[in-house]
Every structure is written in C-alpha cells, then in structure tokens.
C-alpha cells in the first residue's frame, strides 16, 4: 500500500507536465488581461489595469452580461417548472417510461449543436409558429440543452429521498396529492434540485453554438460578445475571457461545496 500513498517520480513529473500543458492557455489569457507590453519576453514587461477598467466601462459588455443572466435565468426557471412535475410523475407513477426517458435524455448528447440549430431554424423560420431569431426559440433550445441535467438531478433526488414511500405516508396521514407534493416532496428534494439548477445555469452561460446560430444577429450573450471582441482588441478580449472564467469557476466551486454538503447529509 505504500506505493499507493507516495507516487513515484515518473508519475509526479508526468502529472506536472500535464498540469503545465493544461494551465498554460489559462495563465496566458490571465497575464494578457493585465499586460501592458508583452512582445518578446517570457513574462510581460509592464502591467496595467487599463483593460479590466475598459471592460467595465463598456456598455455592450454590461448589456451582454445582463442578457446572458436573464436568458439563462428564464430558461432554467422554465425548465424547473416543467421538469419538476413531469419527472415526479414519471418516477413515481410511470416507472415503465424510464427506459424511454433514458433514451430521450441521451439524445441531446448525440445531436451536436449545429445540427440542432439547423433543425430548429427549419421548423420555426416559417409556418404557423414563426419565432426564428427571437428569444423564444433560444429558450426552447436551451430547454433541450439542459434536459439531461435536470432530469438526472431531479430523478436522483427523488430516488434518494424514497419519494414513493414519503408520498404514501403523507396520503395515509390524510394529505391530498397536490399538498403532499408541495409540502413533503419538494422541501426534501430541494437541495439536489438546486445543484442541477446551478449546473444547468453554468452550462447555458457557456453556450455559444446555438446562441450564435439561432439569434446571433439580434441578441448578444456574453459568449457572442466575446467572439465579436476577439478580432478587435486582444487585451480587452482576454479581460472578458478571464472574468468569464472566474465567474464559472466560482459557480463550480459553489456547486462542489453544495454537492459535498448534501452527500455528507445523506450519508
């Protein structure tokens, strides 16, 4: 067992190399955001906060950030409202449908964003429901993107709290079905649901393909804005990229902490 605890030099140097390889692009972007003059040296020659300052003064950046935030919030909220009862019904009353659901949930894995975008635009650019280029089609597309996380998150929570038994107990004590769902099931699955909600949110925040193809010309999210800025000013773009990354990082840290706390409670 001693070999397990202390890794050999080969493994250590291998991991060291891997980490360097993985971290260099990140570090470079970070340095570039604060570099004033970086031409022919390993590290920048002088530093500045100019780019970060410029970023926060840029109205388009703040607009894009705001657009991203509320679009993701609406989509996640809609998904929550639609998915909670549906997954509850399937898990509790229609367990035979779960095979079908598993297939359905794998589908977004297998269909790339470009393909989904072509299908969506074909369906909604003409005909009775003409919503191409609007936020509605994007919210619909986002719903499908986060479907797997929401389904798995809610389902796993329901299974961990043994929803069926809880419900039976509540009904035995005279609670009506709706009341049992709201007062017994919901508070119990809430922590797990919050995790999948946050996860979905951070996924949508990083979404570029569908956003750019479906509504790129009309609605600017943070990713679309970043893409447009890459060509203009390198330093400004890296300031944006790095603040986006810090945001996502903060998000995943919260996620992990929450996850650990909840797993700890269950155990």
């Amino acid at each position, binding site marked *: 067992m001693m070999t397990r605890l202390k890794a050999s030099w080969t493994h250590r140097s291998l991991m060291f190399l891997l980490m360097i390889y*993985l971290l260099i*692009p*990140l570090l470079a972007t970070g340095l570039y955001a604060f570099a004033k003059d970086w031409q022919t040296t390993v590290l920048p020659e002088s530093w500045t906060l100019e780019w970060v300052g410029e970023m926060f003064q840029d109205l388009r950046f703040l607009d894009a950030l705001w657009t991203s935030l509320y679009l993701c919030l609406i989509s996640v909220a809609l998904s929550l409202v*639609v998915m909670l009862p549906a997954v509850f019904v399937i898990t509790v009353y229609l367990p035979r449908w779960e095979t079908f659901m598993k297939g359905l949930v794998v589908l977004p894995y297998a269909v790339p964003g470009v*393909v989904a975008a*072509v299908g969506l*635009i074909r369906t909604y650019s003409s005909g009775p429901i003409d919503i191409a280029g609007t936020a509605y089609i994007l919210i619909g597309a986002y719903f499908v993107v986060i479907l797997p996380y929401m389904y798995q998150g809610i389902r796993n929570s329901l299974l961990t709290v043994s929803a069926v038994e809880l419900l039976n107990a509540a009904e035995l004590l005279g609670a009506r079905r709706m009341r049992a769902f709201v007062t017994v099931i919901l508070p119990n699955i809430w922590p797990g649901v919050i995790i999948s909600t946050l996860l979905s949110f951070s996924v949508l925040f*990083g979404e570029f393909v569908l956003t750019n193809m479906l509504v790129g010309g009309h609605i600017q999210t943070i990713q679309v804005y970043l893409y447009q800025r890459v060509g203009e000013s*390198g330093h400004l773009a890296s300031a944006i*990229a790095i603040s986006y990354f810090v945001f996502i990082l903060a998000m995943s840290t919260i996620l992990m902490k929450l996850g650990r706390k909840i797993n700890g409670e269950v155990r």
Partner: protein
Amino acid sequence: MKHRNRWVWLGLAPFALMVIAFQFMPILSMLTGSFRNVGGPGLTLDHYIKIMHSAYYLQAIKNSLLIAAYSSIIGIVVGLICAYSITRFAPVIRDRLLMLSNMTSNFAGVPLAFAYIILLGNNGVFTLLFKQWGWSVFADFNLYSWSGLVLVYVYFQVPLALLLLYPSFYGIRDQWKEAAALLGASPWQFWRTVGLPMLTPAIFGTLGILFANAMGAYATAYALVGGNYNLLAIRIGSMVAGDIVNQPELGSALAVLLALSTLLAVYLNHRMTKRSQLFTAAYASKSSSKRVLSRLTWAKVKEEAL
C-alpha cells in the same frame, strides 16, 4: 382512478409539449427536409447523391472525420497514460489533480481558441519568442491550419479522456500484477495480455465520446479559423445565415450525416459502457451505474461549450 390520471397527464403535458416542439420536431423536420425535392413535393435522395459527388463536401466530411479521429486517438493515448499515473497518487491528491483538469475544461470553445491565438497565433507570445530565440523548428507551425486545429482539439479531449478513463484502472487489481509477476511476466507482458484487454471496453467507449465530441465541435474551430477551414460542422454552420438556412435541403442532408456519425459514436459508447460494467461490476464495488451516469453528465457539460 380517473382522478389520478388527470393529475398524471397534467404534470406531463407541458414537458411533452416542450420536448416535441424543440427536440422531435426539429429532428423530424431535418430528416424529412433532407429527402425532399427542392421546391416541390416527392421524396428524393438527390441531396445525398449531390454531397457524395461534390469534392468540396466530401473534403469537409473527410477533414472532420480525420480531425476527430486524430484528436481522439491522441487524446486517448495521453489520457490513458495520465489516467494510470493519476491512480498512483493518494486519493486526496488525485481528486485535486482531477479538479484542476476539470477546471481547465471549462475553458473551451471561444475562450480556448482565443487563448491559443494569444500563445501561438501570428503574433502570439510563443511565436514571437521562438522567432527571437531562433527556434526555426516551429517556424512552419501555423495555428490556423490542420496541425493547429488538432493541437487545440487535443487540448479539450485530454481532460475528458482522463475523467472517463481513470475509474476503470481501479478495476485492475494489484494482486493480478503480483500474480503475473510471480508467474514470470514482465510489466509490459502484464499490460499487453491482462491490463489492456481489461480496459478495452472502457477505451473504446471513451473513444466514442471523444469522437462525437470532436465531430460536433463548432465553436472552437469557428473562433479559430472562421469559415476558412473546410469542416463539416463549419459547412453546416455557414449555411445558416440570420434566421434562415440557405439551401435548406442540402444543409439538412449534411446535418443528418453529421448527426449519424455522432449517434454511431455515442451508441458505441453505450455498448462499451455496458460491457465494461460487466467487467468491473464484479470487482469494483463503487462503480455503480449512478456514478457512470454522473460522469457522463460531466462529460456532456464539457461538450456544450465546444
């Protein structure tokens, strides 16, 4: 009984509506569109035949397949070695290393392409440094070409391969190594005859996910080379202009072909995961299907940004 049914349907209706509207309808519309005559009724295979006879689209398909194959194979080799290495560390350090590696994979798509432009683009930091130091070996390297794309693709494949592969190494027990050594096998012989065959389902399963990932990746390539490099995903993307699809039938046919390749790859993963569970379930107590699912979920998270 009737009362209960009403609740059930009420809960399911919005969900069914959303899934039909935004998941099934687009796929159906794309499928039927790819077989439809331009500007008229009737079914036809014309669009597929046209693609098969067009050097341009064939090249796009070939480029996509090649880049997906190369980046997944390099990714899986690096991932395999690193995954073995990572299992040799104490769990605390292992988890930290994995966390770091996962963290970097949040850096995908547009930001990733951008980071590589800073580093290795025409005026990139390393490009200029190498020039100054006179390292002419790198003078030919062009980030906006085939080799550059492979380099960037490998970057997002490695953490994913690592994440998906490392648990399967716990299925290989130290006792087997000892037994093989006692019987006179060299470490190489052990890995060739026992270790690697055990890992084969996991390797091919992961390969499927990596391949699908690279086939469908759009943002990275789009941000790096724009429309200049002929890839299937880029071609499909370039047909979408604003709110409409130019040549919608042809675009649908291309999209169907792309979806077919990723579906096949994901199906391979599905089959292999089942098989590798047969192997590991008997030995590794912790590798329950729930964990496999959650790892896949994480894999998907990474994929979204590409």
